[in-house]
């Protein structure tokens, strides 16, 4: 391979951050533009990869390998399969729009963009790493920037939220690290190369326990109820761009880890735990939906809805069918950009009204029609309306899980009603109805950088909604090895005996 595309995608933001350190803090415009360019470069590379990826060939492409810690057989091993490509694109999109979403920040701009860019860098790295150790390094590397981002530029309860996030995620990291160590010595092939580990076959018991360990570690990041307590506070406390990347990318890291590490290395373990995982997923969906319904704070509502949406992903994973997994992964992308949009709009609204209490707003669509439209689109996307990417994700998850866990699937699908209920209620309270507060009548509508954010994200939401194959094919090619492992051990589709017994022939 000629040009290290993957590394370029991953390291472009870091390069930007380094560059920014050299710029005097006073020159805010320059700093912002450097950040924008850096993320744009990364985005460009990501898009290039989407099209350069050879679906026919499949597997891991754009590989870069170098020895790193020979003592442990650890390598600097970057590459991208279909899944990575999609998620790198997601990260790039969120990073790019995040830069513009925080264009309005005036306080300590330099430090902000350094932090934000390094966070983007870390997240992207996770998706590109094919050495488990490297993956973990990126995974944990993301914690510190998150902490700083929230605690410095955040809003209400920011310090508490930041600390909680740091503690929870580090806890997950610790569990994962333990898993890695045990895995390393259990496999005993002196390598943490995911591909080689994939070839090594573990005993059933090993698979069961290692899967449990890794999934537990990653579940905190997803998050799966009851390990989710960090998320609402963190997402709410974070600055706009922070919330965007937290909801858009960081949540995906955990689920990605579950698929990339736990599932693809220990398929038998996955089968053993899948039902429990499914139940937890459904709890996530319904519980979080109801909690979201009970929120008065807009951002809290969106945060909880994110948990609920990631529940669909988890359900798809638990189903262990191609449709389910593909749906789960597509949900990463769909929910990623959709949540980014929602948080972006929530942030923009907050920057203008300085309140997040839905009851305190109302009628804003009259003052800020553009934001209103964007918010409605975001809400509809999270409702999973056809024409938005989320529809395909959720539908695919439903198809995949319905035949395995009919009951769970039905409960989960009922979520679409609740989501519609609280999302549209939020739209009604915040943007519709007559203008409640007269002071808001003068609020400015979207500025040009808000336009960038909104239009870019909406473009991808709709594009992926209309032409899902682009991503779906990538995902499927990425999933094919996993499906091969699962072929003969996956749980058979349930036969709906509960129907057949009810006076039918089967």
């Amino acid at each position, binding site marked *: 391979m000629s040009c290290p595309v993957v590394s370029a995608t991953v390291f472009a933001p870091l390069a930007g951050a380094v560059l920014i350190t050299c710029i005097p803090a006073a020159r805010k415009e320059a700093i912002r533009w450097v950040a924008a360019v850096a993320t744009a470069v990364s985005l460009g590379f990501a898009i290039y990869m989407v099209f350069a990826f050879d679906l026919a060939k499949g597997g891991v492409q754009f590989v870069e390998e170098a020895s790193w810690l020979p003592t442990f057989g650890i390598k600097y091993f970057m590459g991208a399969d279909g899944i990575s490509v999609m998620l790198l694109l997601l990260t790039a999109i969120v990073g790019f729009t995040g830069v513009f979403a925080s264009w309005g920040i005036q306080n300590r701009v330099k430090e902000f963009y350094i932090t934000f860019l390094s966070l983007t860098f870390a997240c992207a790295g996770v998706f590109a790493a094919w050495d488990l150790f490297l993956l973990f390094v990126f995974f944990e590397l993301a914690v510190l920037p998150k902490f700083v981002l929230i605690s410095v530029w955040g809003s209400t309860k920011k310090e508490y939220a930041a600390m909680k996030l740091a503690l929870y995620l580090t806890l997950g990291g610790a569990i994962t690290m333990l898993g890695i160590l045990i895995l390393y010595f259990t496999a005993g092939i002196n390598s943490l190369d995911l591909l080689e580990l994939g070839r090594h076959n573990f005993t059933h018991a090993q698979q069961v326990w290692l899967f449990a360990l890794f999934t537990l570690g990653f579940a905190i990041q997803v998050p799966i109820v009851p390990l989710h307590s960090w998320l609402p506070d963190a997402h709410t406390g974070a600055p706009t761009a922070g919330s965007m990347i937290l909801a858009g990318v960081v949540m995906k890291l955990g689920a990605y880890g579950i698929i990339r590490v736990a599932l693809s290395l220990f398929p038998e373990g996955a089968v053993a735990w899948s039902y429990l995982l499914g139940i937890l997923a459904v709890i996530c969906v319904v519980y979080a939906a*109801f*909690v979201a319904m*009970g*929120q008065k704070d807009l951002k809290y509502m969106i945060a909880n809805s994110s948990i609920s949406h990631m529940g669909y992903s988890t359900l798809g994973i638990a189903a262990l069918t191609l449709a389910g997994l593909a749906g789960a992964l597509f949900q990463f992308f769909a929910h990623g950009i959709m949540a980014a949009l929602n948080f972006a709009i929530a942030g923009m609204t907050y920057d203008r009204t300085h309140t997040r209490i839905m009851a305190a707003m109302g009628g804003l669509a009259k003052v800020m029609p553009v934001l209103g439209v964007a918010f409605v689109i975001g809400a509809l996307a999270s409702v999973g309306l*056809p024409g938005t990417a989320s529809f395909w994700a959720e539908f695919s998850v439903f198809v995949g899980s*319905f035949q395995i866990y009919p009951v769970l699937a039905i409960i989960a*699908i009922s979520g679409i009603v609740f989501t519609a*209920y609280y999302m549209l209620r939020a739209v009604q309270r915040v943007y519709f109805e007559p203008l409640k507060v007269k002071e808001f009548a003068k609020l400015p509508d979207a500025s040009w950088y808000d336009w960038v954010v909104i239009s870019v994200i909406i473009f991808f939401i709709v594009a992926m909604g209309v032409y899902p194959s682009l991503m779906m*094919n990538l995902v499927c090619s990425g999933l094919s090895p996993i499906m091969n492992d699962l072929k003969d051990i996956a749980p058979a589709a349930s036969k709906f005996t509960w129907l057949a017994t009810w*006076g039918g022939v089967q």
Partner: protein
Amino acid sequence: MELWQLAWLVLFLPLASFLIISLVTLPYRRLSGLVTIFGIGASAVLSIYLLIHVLADPHMHAYQDVWHWLTVGKVQIDFGIMVDPLAVIMMTAVTVVSTLIQIYSQAYMEDDPGYSKFFAFMALFTFSMLGIVLANNLLMIYIFWEMVGLCSYLLIGFWYFKPSAAAAAKKAFVVTRFGDFGFLLGVLLLFHYVGAFAYDDVVRVIGAGGIPSAALTVCAVLVFCGAIGKSAQFPLHVWLPDAMEGPTPVSALIHAATMVAAGVYMVARIYGLFSASDQAMMVIAYIGGITAFLAASMAMAQSRMKRIVAYSTCSHLAYMMMALGLGGFTAGVFHLILHCFFKALLFLCSGAVMYLYFHEENIWRMGGLYKYMKVTAITMILAGLSNVGLFPFAGFFSKDEILVVAKEANMGLYILGSLVALFTAFYTFRLIFTVFFGPRSEWSPVGHGHGHGDDHGHHELPDIGNVRPSQVALMEAVDPVARAESDRHLKKEPLTMTIPLSILAVFAVFAGFWGWPGLENGFSTYISWGHGHGGEHGFNMFVAVLSNVIVIIGMLAAWAIYGKRKNAADPLSEAPGYKYIYRVFERKYYFDEIYLWFIRKIIDAGAAVLAWFEENVFTGVFANGIGSLFMEIGRSFRLFQNGWVQRYALILFLGVLVLVAILVLNEPGLAVAIGGVMK
């Protein structure tokens, strides 16, 4: 290029105009309007062209054209169209009505700042509706199902700054979403058995007995849930009346002519599925019957023009459902098509009345308007006659067929149907008499909304648009003295309104003859199910005469009560004995109250409880609790570090002593044991 591929064009022209408006011509009002009219008009022309071809060969078999959309492993999702007489006829109806309504809206929306937006949405809606009509597989119909739901949400909430509108939009979306929940489950269940979404495959598998009958029933009923939601059938009918918060053209197009009919159309489209399960057919029929009765009865006690028409729509849809459920495929579809025209007309007329009469909606503030708006009045009366199904107006033919089917299939439902016919006649002419004849009501601001449970905020007007400031002033100041003054401000009926009204009126009057019994190449030639069964039901003089008699009775009753009323209120509302029933009708059997109670007391309360749980248990106990626990342990240990060096030394030597003790008391055994445990 195959002829039928024009259907693609028909489908995408409206979408094109939507895109053009939303991306280009948003700032230019007139232009946007024209774009929509021409986009939809073009597809109307095309579909008429196709219709002609269909009429040419009665026995064409369905043409399908499929584009592979998405493949996930074994799940194959196609974007395909299916062109057959049913589709084409429906398509034509939709496009034609839609076109006319666009023209009408030119005038109706003239002052609205959201003019362009309105037409964009209308175009998008037409596209989605055509998608439903043309879809050739379950998933696609589901997708467009949601899309029309979206459009209806956007258009009901078009005046989002009206709390009532915003609420109604949300209500419509969420309630229909309930139906869609079932629909989606049905689709998934069917997919589980069939392994594909296309109608053909479904029907094929059913034919091959691939689905156990119980499962089949479940599938059918689940899919029908979608229809219940969209077509506002009991028990999900509650959203339709509120939906009248949208602009009247919207009500005419979406909530009378097309979208609400989609449920019926879908049942007809997948008739193979439903007809395969008798239980399912039964469910459909009874749901239809019940809804028809409920809606009609409620319509008799409403006081807001559009709501009366809305309930009428509801009950007519239910009529169709009943017909389909009873196997009257042709009758149902025929009624669907005709209803399209006369109900749209009815709505447009009431819209025209409101448009001309200060956007007032309360019929008790009208009366004697005939002389101000002749065209409107006449067309509305025609529509009404068609609506009640009096011979020879269009409504008669389809309604008659339905009653025939009912009489053959299920006596109970037949009686119910006749009763509904009576109600229909009554409320329709109650409306017409009250509005156009009798004395002008003594309407003054004082009279606002007395005793009317359902007119919450309906007299607070949009603070901008579609009412001229001068009119607003009038609205507030109007009283008997000022009325003469105000009458001079009554607008003249613009051509953009009268023309569509007249055209529709023509349909409303004559379209029925296509279903003339025994007509060569009559409707049933193109639209029929199976051989004989459910197709032509012959003509039953008894039924025909009886229904006409019933209708006339109803009309007379209406005349007797409302023809020459004095006061500006419904006499029945105070009629001794009847007034309680009246109250029940007026309050819509308290459905809204019950549902509201459920949402407030069950859903929202549950949400509040869980939110509390989240905050106090997960965050409070788990997160913070554990944290502070460690913190406290740390604090307590600090006490050892009291700064006194000899205490430190003591602890040091205590440590030594303990180590020695471990060793002395029991040989290394203990230590080794510890080591073992830790492994």
